[in-house]
């Protein structure tokens, strides 16, 4: 059977989608070649937010780099903070007090929920449903309030330190977190009733931009995008770090619930289900957290021995890997950040061939990319 484009040939058009476009989640530019409504080719153009974060890393000390990691993935700053701290600790062989590790896991999982809420909210808004976005922001606001109590900031936290965290949790915060979890957990089925199984929504996402498990691995997809293709790989389980081995949770994968395994709907659903798992992790962490110090002794002039380390952490958007080379001085010699969204954009051109323009919006939303992390 002939495709649309072959049966009714029209003149090809070159369209600029972005860099200023509400559905590209920031300053992503997609150069579209279309035949009518059908996309012949969609080429992503990134780099509009490039701030030379890797170059800056070579000129500041290890501790001074912490606030820059906030600006990597600003919807999950806690996770980026912690990833940097874990990398440096691995390089220098620093033992972190257990309470500090629990605090890190608690703030990271709260941040994961906040980040997935934005992913859920903005994705549904892209698909034309405005109400879920307000629901998501309402819940995220309560997480921001918690973080404000923890460290004084609502977006870029700069809370984690090399060897621990900047301050112990304020009194009563764990109770407030439990209170939030009790409030939040029943909301997830509410989202599903509100939008997830809405017929129009499902039609927009099911069987769109299917990525096979083999393709997902070969193209370096990680996090929810990889699990959406049915690959049960989660660094918190498969390459455990911090206190994750002591916490029980399930790895959510795409099941082809409404279409094919690896379509946009699966990637969306993985995030919804992961929020439930994060709630599970948080409840256990709150029950298990020990008393004790929250900061290891780290010398003021901090010079790790020469060496190279690659550490990766499971962030809301996938594997944030940091390749760190030390030459024994106070500054990192080389600092490479492997950003999950950046690698994810690699497959974009391949899977968008032959889709409709409106599907492009669905694909971008389902990848849950964030531009400051792509451009660094």
């Amino acid at each position: 059977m002939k495709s649309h484009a072959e049966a009714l040939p029209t003149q090809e058009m070159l369209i600029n989608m972005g860099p200023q476009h509400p559905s590209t989640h920031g300053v992503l530019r997609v150069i579209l070649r279309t035949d009518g409504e059908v996309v012949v080719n969609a080429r992503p153009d990134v780099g509009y937010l490039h701030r030379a974060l890797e170059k800056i890393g070579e000129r500041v000390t290890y501790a001074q780099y912490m606030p820059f990691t906030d600006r990597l993935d600003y919807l999950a700053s806690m996770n980026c903070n912690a990833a940097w701290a874990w990398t440096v600790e691995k390089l220098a062989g620093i033992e972190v007090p257990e309470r500090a590790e629990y605090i890190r896991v608690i703030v990271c999982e709260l941040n994961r929920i906040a980040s997935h809420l934005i992913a859920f909210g903005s994705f549904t808004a892209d698909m034309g449903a405005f109400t879920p976005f307000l629901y998501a922001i309402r819940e995220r606001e309560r997480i921001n309030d918690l973080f404000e109590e923890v460290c004084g900031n609502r977006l870029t936290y700069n809370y984690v330190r090399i060897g621990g965290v900047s301050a112990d949790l304020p009194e009563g915060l764990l109770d407030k977190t439990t209170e939030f979890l009790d409030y939040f957990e029943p909301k997830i089925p509410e989202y599903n009733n509100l939008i997830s199984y809405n017929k129009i929504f499902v039609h927009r996402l099911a069987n769109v931009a299917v990525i096979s498990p083999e393709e997902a691995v070969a193209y370096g997809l990680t996090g929810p995008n990889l699990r959406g293709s049915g690959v049960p790989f989660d660094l918190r389980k498969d390459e455990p770090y911090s206190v994750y081995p002591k916490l029980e949770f399930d790895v959510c994968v795409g099941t082809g619930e409404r279409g094919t395994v690896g379509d946009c709907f699966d990637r969306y659903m993985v995030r919804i289900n992961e929020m439930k798992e994060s709630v599970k992790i948080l409840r256990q962490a709150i029950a298990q957290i020990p008393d004790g110090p929250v900061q290891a002794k780290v010398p003021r002039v901090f010079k790790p021995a020469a060496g190279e380390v690659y550490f990766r952490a499971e962030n809301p958007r996938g594997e944030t890997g940091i390749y760190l080379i030390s030459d024994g001085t106070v500054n990192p010699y080389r600092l490479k950040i492997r950003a999950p969204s950046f690698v994810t954009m690699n497959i974009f051109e391949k899977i968008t061939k032959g889709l409709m323009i409106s599907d492009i919006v669905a694909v971008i939303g389902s990848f849950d990319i964030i531009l400051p992390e792509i451009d660094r």
Partner: protein
Amino acid sequence: MEPKAIFDLLKSRFGGDILEIQEEGISPPFAVVSPEKLPEIARFLRDEPGLSFDSLMCLSGVDYKERFAVAYHLHSLKETHRIGVKVYLPKENPSVQSVDAVWPAANFMERETYDLYGIVFEGSIDLRRILLPEDWEGHPLRKDYKYPEFYHGIKV
């Protein structure tokens, strides 16, 4: 498999093309290989049963002052092991064969390395600048990079 066993297997297969093993203070350990043989070694690492390095985690350029390097961090989801592979390149006209045919994930990371280090990846499907403007001069992550005073006549 332990990295050591993997390196032994590589040595028995490629002999002198495995130039050096770097382990001291390095995680995961690196096998330094000769740049000419890189595509062949990459294919072997991916396809050999028991190794099956199906995932390229990270590809980075490094400027070691007297020479450049490209570091490949590999992981196998099937066998759950990981190693690093490194090639050293000369300061003048650094270039190495692209591995995007072996691991498609390489393309964007190779473009980034080309953009910021000026390392050319021969045979790449699409090698253009990615983060900087197309008309940018120089490669900023090189250690000897001079900061420009003007960009298109505008003082920076």
